[in-house]
């Protein structure tokens, strides 16, 4: 059983942090295209996972652990990739 409420809370928090980060570095004029793409991808992927959890709970279907783990791994890779982008 996946603690979906916790997962969604974490994803929403990640989205907020990612959006805030993009906002701040844009203000300081230090944002590069690579980093922008990376953090926007984090936002979008988090949204996709939230949408997945929300719709499946709404339809009374099981939230597949594999999808959540795969998405989370993708998010971690994207966050680590931010070290690669200048």
């Amino acid at each position, binding site marked *: 059983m996946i603690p979906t409420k916790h997962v969604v809370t974490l994803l929403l928090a990640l989205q907020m942090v990612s959006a805030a980060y993009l906002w701040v570095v844009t203000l300081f004029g230090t944002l590069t*295209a690579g980093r922008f793409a990376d953090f926007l*991808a984090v936002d*979008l992927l988090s949204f996709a996972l939230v949408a997945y959890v929300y*719709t499946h709970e709404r339809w009374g279907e099981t939230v597949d652990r594999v999808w959540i783990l795969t998405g989370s791994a993708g998010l971690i890779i994207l966050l680590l*990739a931010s070290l690669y982008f200048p």
Partner: protein
Amino acid sequence: MMLYYVPSPSDAFSSTQYIFQTVYFGRFLETVHLYTAYAMIMLAFMHMMRGYFVSVQKKPREMMWIVGMVMGFVTLGFGFTGYLLPWTVVSKSATDVGIGMISALPSALSSAIIFLVVGAGGDATELLRFYDLHVVVLPAVLLVLLTVKMYMLEVHGIAEPATGPPPDARASHGLSIFPDVTLYLLGLAAMFGSAMLLVSAVFPLSLPPMYTPQLAAQFTPQPDWYFLWIYQILKIAVFEGKGLPIALSIVTLIFVLLLALPFVDRGATRRIRDRPVYVTIGWIFIAELFVLAYWGLESPGQVIATEEAALVLGGTAILVAIVSLAFYRGMSRRPSKPVGETHGALSTATGFVALLAAGSIGIGWSFNSIVRVVAMGANSLNLLQLGISLGVLVSVIPLSMFFLYRLELDRGSLKRRVRLFDVRGRTK
């Protein structure tokens, strides 16, 4: 991009260059725009072929297929009109070739198209018309068609899987367009968008040189990848000169047949297992497209000998037909698996798509290697290429056929998606 781009021959390139070099994230935006357009064309093609294989065009969804095909043509129109806009030597030369082909059509038709698309004011009118088509006319047409298609989807629901339990055995979730279907689609769009962003960041575009007649004279024009198959057909020797209208007629006939598919393939069954002829034709079509495109890419500007074209294209068709029919023969000896035993539809679909691409390249590569061995002699490099390409081909094609069959049987995500679009439980 519309804020900075100037659609005139004197400023088009410099304004595009300005976007690339000066506008904040301009190069990134251009890259995302191009890659997303390429992905749209590829996904539209995959969507069409998937629909063909599982017979979505059959009653009562004939009009949905036709509208979808017109949307596909509009998508190609986006590609054709957008390609010219940067006014690079690559884009302008390729567009000139395309417009030159229109001139080979019957005079009334070609005059009408050239009047509408190019106008009579030379390069300036041509560029302005292409720009207008790209940013106003085609988006408006696509929006209308999309609305019509979504309405039809609402009325008819998504097509049933080619196998599976009868419609009334499936539980309806009574899903609504909003938020259920909308969120489902937005989630997919978000995943697709994030992939496009990352690819664009890792592989940014470079702008080719500006078009000048002098530079164009040194350059062999070649269309973008999605028109390479047409380009390659037109390069066959028999279609040179007076044969050009015949080649264009063949290309037009292919499009007309695709459009009219609901009235051609009228059999009652939708099961892949029971439609060997149409499934084989579909495979031949895909293989020929990939072979022609790959060949066109590898031989820019070369006229292809008619005998060579007949050997390669005929050989591809025969080979795919033999493999496909052998597969069907093998399948007919096996009892059907009960539906629902197999799992992992997503991995099956991914494997299928990968194999589809690899198999098609394998066919083109094999024939290319055979032609090289015949024409240039059996040296070790040519023989090595031949061996590897045949190895790829022999291993990939049967696997692809197997995956296609599994795809049909899988009920995992496919079934769920059918239920998802089964708005208010309507199934016809």
